[in-house]
């Protein structure tokens, strides 16, 4: 027997419990159904075994009542599973507001992770116990998938977009990080470790290494280097929208539509400025596609996210789910 062999995976995050609850509910329900059918199958097969070649079974008509029963009862049970699962999924897609943001850039065949304070790690992520961690992820090449079995979370990491996942670790330890989407030759070795530490130990760990720039600081520097400041500052000769406080808020577009300025929108506006012009502005901004790397983009977006207007309350973190929820709400009205 190998070390650590168990029948159930570790449960080391809040999400693990939520997913497992649905898992075991379905397991019990389906288990009972399977048992029922097997017992009936075996019983009938044995009990009504052909005893003589002249057996002539009686005719048995179908039964509408039975048909309805075994259509509607499973349907009801399955709707319960669906609703429960949907709730969990919704929650898994909605990071809490107090989450710290770790950026993830995947490339064949490694994970590049960066802490909010700027520390970078490769194939390893140290996180504090009990703190929600929001992962903003993108890929430089093929599709990958960020999978931590002990947390029961998985999200594809797709080139050209930001996917978000989050977790809140509840148990100290070291856990597997896998790439779960086939990405080429060394796919199986594109793994790593998530190390869950006491918050104090985490702070110590952060302090121990060299003190790098935080993404926000790096973003601010880039913002200046790329001359974004010439147009996008309250004190600049205004040709572009002021970006202070824009994150998380609805933006009215020239097309008459409204979008919420989330990570994806900000990223798009840098690489493809013409796509969604803010109402009242001209499409004069050049594209930065090819001039900034994925990691620089992340830094820029992090910086923009940090530009909260002084008078303004901290906006609710808008995430994929949140944005979709906002839309759903509109549609519902």
């Amino acid at each position, binding site marked *: 027997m190998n070390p650590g062999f168990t029948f159930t995976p570790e449960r080391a995050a809040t999400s693990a419990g939520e997913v497992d609850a649905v898992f075991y509910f379905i397991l019990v329900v389906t288990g009972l159904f399977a048992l029922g059918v097997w017992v009936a199958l075996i019983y009938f097969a044995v009990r009504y075994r052909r005893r003589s070649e002249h057996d002539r079974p009686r005719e048995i008509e179908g039964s509408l009542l039975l048909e309805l029963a075994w259509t509607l009862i499973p349907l009801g049970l399955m709707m319960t599973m669906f609703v429960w699962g949907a709730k969990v999924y919704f929650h898994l897609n909605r990071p809490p507001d107090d989450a710290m943001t770790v950026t993830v850039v995947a490339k064949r065949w490694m994970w590049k992770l960066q802490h909010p304070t700027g520390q970078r790690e490769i194939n390893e992520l140290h996180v504090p116990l009990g703190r929600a961690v929001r992962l903003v992820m993108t890929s430089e090449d093929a599709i990958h998938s960020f999978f931590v079995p002990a947390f029961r979370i998985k999200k594809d990491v797709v080139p050209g977009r930001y996917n978000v996942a989050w977790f809140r670790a509840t148990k100290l330890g070291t856990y597997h990080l896998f790439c779960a989407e086939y990405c080429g030759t060394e796919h199986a070795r594109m793994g790593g470790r998530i190390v869950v530490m006491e918050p104090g130990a985490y702070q110590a760990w952060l302090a121990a290494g060299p003190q790098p720039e935080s993404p926000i600081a790096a973003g601010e520097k880039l913002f200046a280097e790329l001359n974004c400041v010439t147009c996008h500052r309250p004190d600049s000769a205004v040709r572009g929208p002021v970006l202070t406080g824009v994150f998380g808020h609805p933006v009215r577009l020239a097309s008459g539509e409204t979008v919420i300025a989330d990570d994806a929108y900000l990223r798009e506006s840098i690489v493809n400025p013409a796509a969604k012009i803010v109402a009242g502005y001209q499409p004069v901004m050049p594209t930065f596609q090819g001039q900034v790397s994925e990691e620089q983009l992340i830094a820029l977006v992090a910086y923009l996210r940090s530009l909260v207007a002084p008078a303004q309350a901290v906006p609710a973190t808008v995430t*994929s789910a949140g944005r979709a929820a906002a839309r759903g709400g509109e549609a519902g009205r």
Partner: protein
Amino acid sequence: MQPQTGPPADQPAEHHVVPWTVYVVIFLGLCLLTATTVIVAGFDFGPLNIIVALGIAISKASLVVLYFMHARYSPRLTGVVIAAALAFFVILVFLTWTDYYSRPWPLTTG
């Protein structure tokens, strides 16, 4: 065989030889609609552009299916086949669309 098999074997099945003038009229109608769609494309109706263009195209396609392809004079089963194909076509485009419509991805335009 279908239980309600129509004419006996040796009779011609084609009861509906459509007069050729019908084809010419349909052809002229198609030309007219082509001209319309080109002219209309010169105007900007905003989001309605695509609806107008597709509306005209659907009208043209319906004329071809109903008259040139004799769907109007064909057994009901032909209609069922067309409807099934259309239904699955719509499912393909529409359900794919539901993802893109509300997806937080650079592609979406609100």
